[in-house]
């Protein structure tokens, strides 16, 4: 069902004349991709192993694929904070809303700049592209956000990123690549611009929209700098990544001395340190990335479906 066209073609072909070259190609290809998988899977497995290993023991190094002394302590240390769950909710909200909004808005603008006759086309295109290469700086941006009343406000996660220029350009390229005949016949049917965009272009762009959605979702999910800058004093607007940053820094701090003397008398107690920054970093990598990684297989089906769409032929 999900067979791609290329696949169908090559299968037919292999039936006719299973060329030796093709077979060799396949073997090489699969071998290469398997090797690639091993190399790219390793860091994740390694991180997972460290996160499941006793923190004090991890200091010794030498953890590769499996933990040496299994423990869930690192996870309970990270997840024990009551704030984590509310923060996760906010992360999900900003990811869902931010993604939907930016995909829709970017696609809409992208559509307008594919219309060759649009009088503002060149102006809009260049105005957007140029912004990829400059930045007014941290403080002017901060003051702007403050003056717009977006400090300590959920919408600061959404508005500044309303349109991603990169996404815009990718969608534009995609629309430009659509078969003209479809657009043309819709136009002859008398579809207005918004209808064209909404009913014809958007559905045809699902593969690229899925791609862009993935990019935005990952961006939104991983963001913590805006929380730090704008919403740090409102715990109700904190996100998962930001809370994890806090936990990591605390685990760092419990090891650094106060500037002088032995202010921290109780640190005399060896073994009191059940966590280390090294272990916490690994744990938070897993905690933060697993949810967002799950998004991919879900979106992946749109890439494949896109293939089938293209593959439908009479």
């Amino acid at each position: 069902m999900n067979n791609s066209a290329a696949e169908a073609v090559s299968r037919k072909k292999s039936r006719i004349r299973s060329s030796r070259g093709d077979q060799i190609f396949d073997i090489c290809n699969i071998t290469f991709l398997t090797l690639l998988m091993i190399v790219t899977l390793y860091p994740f497995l390694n991180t997972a192993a460290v996160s499941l290993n006793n923190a004090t023991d991890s200091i010794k190094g030498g953890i590769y694929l499996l933990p040496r002394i299994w423990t869930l302590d690192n996870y309970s240390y990270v997840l024990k904070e009551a704030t984590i769950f509310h923060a996760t909710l906010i992360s999900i909200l900003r990811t869902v809303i931010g993604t939907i909004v930016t995909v829709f808005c970017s696609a809409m603008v992208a559509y307008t700049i594919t219309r060759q006759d649009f009088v503002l086309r060149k102006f809009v295109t260049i105005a957007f592209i140029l912004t990829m290469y400059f930045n007014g700086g941290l403080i002017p941006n901060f003051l702007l956000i403050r003056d717009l009343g977006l400090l300590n406000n959920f919408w600061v996660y959404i508005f500044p990123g309303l349109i991603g220029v990169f996404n815009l350009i990718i969608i534009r390229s995609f629309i430009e690549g659509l078969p003209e005949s479809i657009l043309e016949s819709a136009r002859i049917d008398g579809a207005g611009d918004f209808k064209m965009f909404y009913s014809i272009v958007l559905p045809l762009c699902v593969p690229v929209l899925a791609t862009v959605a993935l990019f935005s979702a990952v961006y939104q999910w991983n963001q913590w700098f805006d929380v730090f800058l704008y919403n740090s004093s409102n715990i109700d607007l904190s996100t998962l990544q930001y809370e994890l940053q806090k936990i990591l820094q605390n685990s760092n701090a419990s090891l650094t001395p106060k500037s002088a003397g032995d202010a921290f008398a109780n640190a005399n107690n060896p073994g009191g340190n059940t966590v280390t920054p090294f272990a916490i970093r690994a744990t938070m990598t897993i905690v933060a990335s697993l949810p967002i990684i799950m998004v991919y297989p879900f979106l992946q089906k749109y890439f494949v479906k896109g293939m089938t769409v293209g593959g439908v032929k009479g």
Partner: protein
Amino acid sequence: MESKPTMTTSNLVLPKKPTGLKRFGIKLLEQRVLVLMSVPFLVWLFIFKYMPLWGWTIAFQKYKPAKSFSEQKWVGFDHFNFLFQDERFIRVLRNTIAMSGINLVLGFVTAITLALLLNEVRKVAFKRIVQTVSYLPHFISWVVAASIIQTTLSTDGIINELLLWFGFIEKGNEILFLGIPEYFWGIFGAGSVWKDVGWNTIVYLAAMTMIDPAQYEAAEMDGAGRIKRMWYVTLPGIKPVIIVLLIMNIGYLLESGFEPQYLLGNGMNIDYSENLDIFVLKYGIAQGNYSLSIAAGMFKTIISFILLFGANNIAKRLGESRLF
């Protein structure tokens, strides 16, 4: 190319022969839906991206955040001079361009190659698994990734163990990979590819869904093998996307990243690892000197614009798709 609709509309307008502003106004009115679909976002763009540009004035001041604009002390091009006249500037710039160039070339070639190879996999399940796994390292922060790279390259790391095992080196002569300056760019390039190749293929895979399968069939009729089809059908099919991305990235030539160089850099390889961003961090941000970092940012922007327009022009002359 897609000029049909254009022709029809302009044909309607032309007979009246209005000129200049008026004609523009009429068109604008005619295209009010398109205007409504884009102009609100132009306003957004102006507020969020262009308005903060007043901050560039900071580059010409001895900026103190506590003072109001009129109280700031103006210093002209002092910060630019500090930047350009430092003896390390050329070296830092060289490193930035080299690493960014390596990233650009290597990043494009590997991601496109991987996308092509994935496209040729027949078993959907396998293809999906490879795709998912290959993009995993993207989710590992550079801090964690750098620590894995350092462990791998250490004297008792896997690379040295392998070299020992194959007999390329002798015990006691393990290679101090991160201590050899000339190796740094290579390590950086390999590390970046490893971390992001899977992620970078996504956009090409999406682009491949647009290729009309009829083309594959036609190519097959002509007796083209797998490699030839990759070369003559798939690659041209995604060429517009490749070129647009290429132009965009050429504009980023002075952005070579910051974290990997900072994390993998050390005193031994500093001559090859220190890039513009690290330099600005050390002498700008870490010293509380906002002005220097803004000056560096402006410098980068100017170079970016030159490169961007240059690359776009070249693409135009070659008759390729272009960015704008």
